[in-house]
């Protein structure tokens, strides 16, 4: 048991520095096209591409939906105000739908 603990401590505290002193792997000296990389280093492009295009569309449609929702809310508020003015007998408020400054 003591030997096992000593082994773990040895690996933990001395393993790192020993590994760090190993000579680095042979540096790559020439350009390697990505389609010639080993499979472990290849990252599939299709999911990234699909995500990019999908994100663009989701964001645009979400924005159109928010504008449409805000427009609906403003129009509903406008109807309530117009009704209130009619009930009060004010008549038209003098503000027309084209009379925005």
């Amino acid at each position: 048991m003591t030997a096992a603990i000593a082994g773990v401590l040895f690996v933990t505290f001395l393993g790192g520095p020993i590994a760090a002193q190993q000579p680095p792997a042979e540096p790559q000296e020439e350009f390697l096209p990505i389609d010639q990389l080993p499979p472990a280093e290849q990252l599939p492009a299709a999911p990234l591409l699909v995500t990019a295009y999908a994100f663009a569309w989701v964001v645009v449609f979400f924005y159109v939906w928010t504008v449409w929702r805000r427009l609906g809310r403003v129009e509903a508020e406008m109807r309530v105000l117009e009704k209130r003015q009619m009930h009060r007998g004010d008549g038209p408020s003098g503000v027309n739908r084209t009379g925005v400054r």
Partner: protein
Amino acid sequence: MKNLFIPLVVVTAAMFAYAPVAIANAPYESTMLLIQKIFYFHVPAWMAMYAGIVVCGVASAVHLFKNRPAADRLAVSAAELIVLFGAIGLVTGPLWGRKAWGVWWQWDARLTMALLLELVFIAYLLVRQYGGPGSDKLAAAVGLFGMAVSPFVYVSVNIWRTIHPLNTVVPSLRPGMRGAFWFCAVAFVLLFSILLQLRMSLAKEQALLDDLYLADDEGAA
């Protein structure tokens, strides 16, 4: 302009329906292959953002110096679209970078400045939303500032050494790629103009509602 809205929507929808075909038919870039095709949405999104920056900046200046509410409505509408198209550029870029560079993000000059530009216009919208009375003028100053700094973002790749591709990529595109790219660029600018008109109609209705509330208060008094 109202008469043009529906034809513009139809043309833009047709262009975006055809865009995947144009992009698929464009030749592969020799080193990046499939992932390079993000470029056909990434760069046009930035172009639409820059169109928005010019509209917002000029309209902000008009509102700031001539006090025109219509210019203010145009500026705030454009600012929302700047944030929208900027978000598309900021998300599609790292998706390309993950494959091309091996990292999602690098704090290099171009990427950092593009993020800061997006944050400037988010600040514009926050000022408008929570700034209270007078925030329209303050926001107009922010919009003008955003327009003034935007050219630095564009030329940053030429001034500093960054890992981002240079601005010369677009003029040096091969003929097959060039057609698809400009097709997408026009589609994005048209999309920008449609969304701007849509957002402007909301801004107009909101201004009308404010006038109605004022009239209502005067009637009640």
